[in-house]
């Protein structure tokens, strides 16, 4: 009797071990991707990117924040009015904060004179080689084949390793329940719970139904240009061909995909 119980427990233990090993095996020898049908109107970009034409962003000095407001209401971003809990996907900052180390007094003069001392628009760079994706222990943030770096709010454990890894300060944690602080809820996009990380998603939910990103759509001066880098006839490619552009911290090897025209 004792002998059979012993061998039963042994086999039971080994089978439990087998179940435990399954996710590991899956990780090494992955199964196929799930299939789903796309919206017929969806944009099918191969490599999405954005050009920020600062020369056109002329109303920012007069307090224009159309792109920020559009993003906030499209994505149910809460307003806490304190920097500690703050959540921002796209925001304005000065040149020396957007491009630290690249400032010099003469460039400062240029920005003051020719660009009217504009604030610069900063957001997630949707890097080709994103450090945040590399460090995430649960693959809650990942890079899609079309280059967009997205978040799975339902998988994120809130460890904030990605926030340490992002060299652009683009990531936010929901330090507290955001829902009471959402001004007007947009039912087209999920709200988040406290304790998960979020950031700009290039409006992947709008691209999927054939709409441009909310910030791009909101800018009346067409300072934000969004498009497919793999398409040689796209507007972004035309701008990159014809105008000199810079990126934020390209030396870090992240290959950021937001380009700036000064």
């Amino acid at each position: 009797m004792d002998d059979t119980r012993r061998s039963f427990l042994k086999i039971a233990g080994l089978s439990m071990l087998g179940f435990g090993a399954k996710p590991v095996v899956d990780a090494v020898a992955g199964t196929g991707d799930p299939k789903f049908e796309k919206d017929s109107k969806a944009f099918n970009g191969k490599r999405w990117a954005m050009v920020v034409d600062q020369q056109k962003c002329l109303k920012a000095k007069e307090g224009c924040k159309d792109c920020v407001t559009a993003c906030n209401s499209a994505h149910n971003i809460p307003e806490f009015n304190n920097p500690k809990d703050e959540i921002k996907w796209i925001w304005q900052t000065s040149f020396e904060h957007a491009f630290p180390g690249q400032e010099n007094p003469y460039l400062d003069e240029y920005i003051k004179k020719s660009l009217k001392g504009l604030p610069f628009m900063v957001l997630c760079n949707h890097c080709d080689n994103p450090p945040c994706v590399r460090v995430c222990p649960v693959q809650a943030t990942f890079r899609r084949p079309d280059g967009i770096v997205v978040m799975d709010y339902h998988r994120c454990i809130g460890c904030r390793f990605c926030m340490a890894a992002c060299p652009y300060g683009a990531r936010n944690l929901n330090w507290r329940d955001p829902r009471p602080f959402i001004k007007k809820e947009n039912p087209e996009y999920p709200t988040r719970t406290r304790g998960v990380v979020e950031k700009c998603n290039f409006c992947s939910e709008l691209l999927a139904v054939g709409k441009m990103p909310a910030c791009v759509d909101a800018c009346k001066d067409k300072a934000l240009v969004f498009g497919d880098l793999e398409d040689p006839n796209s507007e972004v490619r035309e701008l990159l061909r014809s105008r000199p552009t810079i990126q934020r911290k390209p030396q870090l090897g992240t290959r950021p995909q937001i380009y700036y025209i000064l």
Partner: protein
Amino acid sequence: MLEKALRGNKSYFAWIGFLLILVGMGFGFYLRQLGFGLGITGMSRDVSWGLYIGQFTFLVGVAASAVMLVLPYYLHNYKVFGKITILGEFLAVAAVTMCLSFIVVDLGRPDRAFNVLLYPTPNSVLFWDMVVLNGYLFLNIFVGWTVLESEAKSVPPPKWIKPFIYLSIPWAVSIHTVTAFLYAGLPGRGFWLSAIMAPRFLGSAFAAGPALLILICLFLRKYTKFDAGWEAIQSLAKIVTYAMIISVFFVLCELFTVFYSQIPEHMYHFLYLFVGLHGHSGLVPWMWASTVLAAIALIIMINPKTRNSPGTLAIGCAAVFFSLWIEKGITLVITGYIPSPLETITEYHATLPEIGIVIGVWALGFLIMSVLYKVALSVKAESA
């Protein structure tokens, strides 16, 4: 054997009761954090890791230091450590438990902690940290308990335990190396982006852990019947001395590279830490306290006279421990975020609930350590 922890004198139970109260208090604060979110702490969008991850980092070092007893005793047959090796192993158990607790209290969604197992991600250093920490916890409980059980039965430890003991030696190095890699591989954080991070972690670990053990041994010698032996304490003291010298040397190497190269994104952090930056100097007093303590520690520990006398040795070890606790438990993590990648400065101030939770987790660690030590010392007293 665990029943031995249930017998003791009044002061033992008073100590256990005291620790239980602190654990309960910490748990109360943790419930509040669960209800409100991590916004209850001093952490922010810019400084997104704080005291919790700092304590975690420091305690990984304390845990790793058990190898400083295991290696001489089992690999070099250094008999003097025979009596206290178990203390090192059980200290490691308590320290790793604190580490894991600090990770859990730091999670935004602790209810999803097991996602790390459900979606194993070999390219994430955090995944490997989870693997090595849990492995190390298992190894130390397993080895410590098996060896102690043999001692209780007055038989030599079983032969099959040897491979586990040998495995625990490189494993100890791995826990602190992997923990250093959490920081040392991030492109945008100049303060952490240094190849010497892992050696530095090991250097400070092998000073802080044994220093704590010496303090414990001196305490046990004075207030209980357990004497670790003066020779063992002296050997440990030499280990602490060398490790502290190496640790300080590594920090100086760091300072040379940063200030001679003058690369701003590396230098600003050190400026903030030592003299303040753009009028912000929240960590300056801490850093100088750590520096002064390190100097005192080196003077006491290098001088054989002061190292050989129990009174000054205790002061020296306390100086080592607190100097490194500040360096790794507070400044190392927070300074990495100041200035931010956009070169703005947001300072960090721990809140009351946050400190309460920190104290609670430390009390939990001391509770585990006290219970395990009680068992170990009772077994040793009976078999002597």
